[in-house]
Structures are given as structure tokens and as C-alpha cells.
């Protein structure tokens, strides 16, 4: 009991002790293989802390509903997740993840209706089926790519009577995580596990939040019950609370300034409006991401979080850095490291330059790719092409110029946003980059600024 006590913030401990004393009669179901798997011990339930966590979740739910933090349906999403937690907590360890998957599936049906939910499940299972085939990985990859290409074609042509809502959700669930998953599977000797596949792709919060952090597969597996559930759940609640604060602020600022439609950036006043809009969007996205990751914590996933204390105080570029941590990890793992490691025999500087260029290219492409899934059209606007090409060339030039220095970098990845948000963000990035170039004292200083992940988490 005292160990659990340590997981609660100091000022709440007295409260906890009282509730624990009151709930002493609780029963904790025993687990069979407690001796073998340390995670089982970490999942051990206790009545007192349980009610305490539930109480906090209740407060959170109240806050979401009273402040109308998201769409009205979100209250139901949160309620479903919190109720799910209430049950999940007491289940024997080996039933926990299946329950979570089942909960997500139920959520999908509730959210999207019979047709779309079934289609989502079916498509996912087909993809998994391909992976399961007893073929060499490269053939499975080829088949999967083919399948994906077919899907993309269907999406583009609006083929078959498939509602576009399906495509948006399917994209939200699969478009980036499939890349991570396949990358990890390519180095995996074992057969892919269906349970892991389902729990990675069919994430309940993702059904509501189409804009979602690119959670890393290995990290998610490794983080599962990595620490005692009370510590993880408490942290999740803390992050959800923080996310709620961001959303409250967003709502407040938004109403304070009326609606801002930043569709066509053609003049400086609208540039300022766009910058402001981006700040708002940032608050909203940050709030949503905190809530998402916090929700997953409740089910045992001790996922990492971005640093937040300086979020609202530091510079604009730092905001992007904070949002981008999952994206940055994604790029480093899937693009930068592979290219660098492949090329480093030919000279370290050259490898870094080309790896940097690769990150730029891939980010540009994925930017459009995401737009495609969400809206059906590939974002190949000339402004984007010019921007990324120019940026890429500048960075490569800088890297070559700095050959004597050790470190080299890749570009700042713009956070993909939903539809209009994506468009606005893309345009905004173009403009603020040019603006910061205009304002920077020197080219090298600006390049330093833009190649943000030279250092840092």
C-alpha cells in the first residue's frame, strides 16, 4: 500500500489514505502467473487506489462536459474509455489487452455504424492476413504495398460505394502506423501477433481524434505495463488534465477573437491571422495529444510524452518541436538512421547530408500523402514543391559548408493537420520560414534555426 502511495502527488496523499481506509473491503483477483511475468505484478489491483483513480476520472469527465471541450460526442467517447478502464482494471492480466481491443471494436461500431466498422475490421484483417503468409518478407511487403496501392486508387477514384468517412478513418488508423509496423516487422523473426496488430491499429481514441500522434510500435509494446498501473494511470490522468487545460485555453482564446478563416493567405493581415490561427491550432492539437496519450495510459501503455513546461512560454519554433516529438522519432527511425547507416561507409559527412535530404523528401511526400487520405487529393501544389525543394537545397548547402563541424541536421517537419489545418499549416510554414529568414541576422543562423533536430530530444 505504501508503495502505491508514492505514486500519488504529495498533496493528494491524505485524501487517498482516507479513501483507502474506507474501501478496505475490496477484493483483488489473484493472477496465476504472477511469479513469471513482472507485468502481472504491476497490474495488481487495489481497491483504495482504484476508487481514487475513478474519482479523478469522474472529475475529468465533468470538466470535459461542463466546458464542452470537444464535440458533444466526445463526452461519450471519454465516458466509454473511462468505463472501460473501470472494468479493465480488475481483469486478470491475460484478459486485459483482449478486452481493450474488444472495447475499441465496440467503440468502432458505435461510432461508425455497422458498415464502416465492419469494413475497417475486414481491411485490417486482410492486411494482417498478407503479413501472416509464409513468404519471405520482401514478397509480403510487395503484396502489402500492392494492396495499399489498390486502396489508394479506390480512394482516389471514389470506387465502390464506400463512404469517404471510411477512407478518412482508415487513413487515420493506418497511413503512418503501417509504415512503422512494417519497418519493425522486417526485422522481426517471429510471426506477427494478431493481438499486437489489433491493439496497435484499432485504438479507440483514434476513432474520434483523426489527427493522431505517430505512436511507435516497439515503444508501445515495450511500454505495456512497464511500471505499476497506478503510477501509469495517475500520470495518464495528469496528462489528460493538462490536455484539458490546453483545450479550455483554446476555447477561451478562440471565442475571444471570433472566428478566423485563414483560407487564402494573400496579404500580411491574413498572414498574421494565420499565425494566430496556428497558435490556436497548436493549443488544440497539444491538448488533444495529451488527452490521447493519457487515455492510453489508463490501459497500461506507459507511452512517452513531450516536455510541456515551456510549451506556452518559449518561442514559436519550440512549439513545433514539442508537437513533433513523435513525428521526429518516426523520421529518425524510419528514414534518417537507415539512410545514414547504409551510406556511412562512404564517409560520415556524405551520409549525413544524404540522410538529411532523405528526411526532407520523405516529409514532403508524407505531407501530401496524409492530405490524400484525408481529402482524396494529393497535395502537389507548386508552392509546396518550391518550398521543400528550396529548403532542402539550402539545408544541403549548409551541411556541405559545415563539413568541419560534427553535427548536421534535417529539416523541421511540419505537423500534419487535418484538411484545412493541413493546408493552413503548410502555407504557414512556408511563410514563417521565409519570414524568419528575412528576420534572421544571417543565413547560417536561420539554417541553425530551421534544422531543429541537430540536438534535443
Amino acid at each position: 500500500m505504501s508503495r502505491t502511495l508514492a505514486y500519488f502527488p504529495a498533496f493528494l496523499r491524505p485524501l487517498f489514505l482516507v479513501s483507502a481506509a474506507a474501501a478496505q473491503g475490496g477484493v483483488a483477483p489473484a493472477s496465476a502467473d504472477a511469479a513469471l511475468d513482472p507485468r502481472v505484478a504491476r497490474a495488481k489491483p487495489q481497491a483504495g487506489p482504484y476508487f481514487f483513480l475513478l474519482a479523478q476520472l469522474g472529475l475529468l469527465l465533468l470538466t470535459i462536459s461542463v466546458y464542452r471541450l470537444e464535440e458533444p460526442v466526445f463526452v461519450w467517447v471519454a465516458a466509454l474509455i473511462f468505463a472501460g478502464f473501470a472494468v479493465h482494471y480488475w481483469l486478470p492480466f491475460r484478459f486485459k489487452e483482449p478486452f481493450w481491443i474488444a472495447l475499441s471494436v465496440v467503440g468502432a461500431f458505435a461510432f461508425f455504424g455497422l458498415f464502416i466498422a465492419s469494413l475497417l475490421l475486414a481491411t485490417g484483417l486482410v492486411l494482417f492476413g498478407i503479413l501472416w503468409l509464409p513468404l519471405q518478407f520482401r514478397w509480403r511487403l510487395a503484396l502489402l504495398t500492392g494492396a495499399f496501392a489498390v486502396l489508394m486508387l479506390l480512394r482516389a477514384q471514389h470506387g465502390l460505394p464506400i463512404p469517404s468517412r471510411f477512407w478518412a478513418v482508415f487513413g487515420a488508423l493506418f497511413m503512418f502506423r503501417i509504415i512503422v509496423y512494417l519497418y519493425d516487422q522486417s526485422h522481426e523473426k517471429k510471426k506477427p501477433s494478431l493481438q499486437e496488430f489489433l491493439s496497435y491499429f484499432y485504438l479507440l481514441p483514434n476513432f474520434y481524434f483523426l489527427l493522431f500522434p505517430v505512436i511507435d510500435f516497439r515503444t508501445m509494446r515495450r511500454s505495456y505495463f512497464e511500471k505499476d498501473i497506478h503510477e501509469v494511470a495517475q500520470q495518464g490522468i495528469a496528462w489528460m488534465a493538462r490536455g484539458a487545460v490546453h483545450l479550455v485555453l483554446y476555447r477561451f482564446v478562440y471565442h475571444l477573437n471570433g472566428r478566423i478563416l485563414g483560407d487564402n493567405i494573400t496579404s500580411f493581415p491574413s498572414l498574421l491571422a494565420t499565425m494566430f490561427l496556428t497558435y490556436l491550432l497548436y493549443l488544440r492539437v497539444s491538448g488533444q495529444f495529451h488527452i490521447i496519450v493519457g487515455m492510453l495510459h489508463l490501459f497500461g501503455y506507459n507511452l512517452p510524452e513531450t516536455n510541456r513546461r515551456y510549451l506556452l512560454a518559449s518561442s514559436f519554433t519550440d512549439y513545433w518541436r514539442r508537437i513533433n516529438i513523435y513525428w521526429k522519432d518516426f523520421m529518425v527511425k524510419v528514414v534518417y538512421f537507415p539512410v545514414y547507416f547504409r551510406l556511412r561507409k562512404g564517409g560520415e559527412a556524405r551520409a549525413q547530408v544524404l540522410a538529411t535530404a532523405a528526411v526532407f523528401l520523405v516529409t514532403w511526400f508524407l505531407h501530401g500523402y496524409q492530405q490524400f487520405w484525408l481529402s482524396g487529393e494529393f497535395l502537389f501544389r507548386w508552392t509546396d514543391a518550391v518550398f521543400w525543394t528550396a529548403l532542402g537545397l539550402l539545408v544541403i548547402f549548409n551541411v556541405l559548408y559545415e563539413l568541419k563541424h560534427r553535427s548536421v541536421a534535417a529539416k523541421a517537419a511540419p505537423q500534419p493537420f487535418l484538411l484545412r489545418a493541413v493546408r493552413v499549416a503548410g502555407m504557414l510554414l512556408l511563410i514563417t520560414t521565409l519570414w524568419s529568414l528575412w528576420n534572421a541576422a544571417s543565413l547560417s543562423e536561420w539554417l541553425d534555426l530551421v534544422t531543429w533536430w541537430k540536438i534535443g530530444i
Partner: protein
Amino acid sequence: MSDQTEKIRAFILAEFLPGESPANLRDDTPLRTSGILDSLATLRVVSFVEEQFGIEVEAHEAGVENFDRIADISAFIDRKRAAKS
């Protein structure tokens, strides 16, 4: 084995933690997840480990699973060496 961890510890202390007392850098101190090593610093550790211990690290092995704590790095080196022989 402990000679291996000591070499790794000495390298990390010298390169990234000047002035820190060795006792504070334990085998289980998280380095990547706490931000003391970023992704570029990791590449330097990878180079060091390859040179010192004669193994070859691949891109997908350079992640947090193998390069977060000294214990992880050491275990990774052992596995690679065992696989080679």
C-alpha cells in the same frame, strides 16, 4: 563483462557528462529517454561501441531498446558478439 560496462561508462562520462561523478551514472540510468543523449549523440555512441567491441550495428538496432541505459548497451553488445561466433 563489467570491464565492458566500465568502458562504456567512461566514454559517456567523458563525452556527454563532463564533471559528473561516475557513481551517479549507474547501469540503469536512462540516457535517451531522459534526454541526456539525443539521436545524434546516439550515433556517436554507436561508432564508439563498434570500434571498441568489434561489432556492427544496424539501423534498426540503434533505437531506444538497445541504447537507453548502459545495461542495455552492454547486453546488446553481448548478443551481437554471441551471434557472430
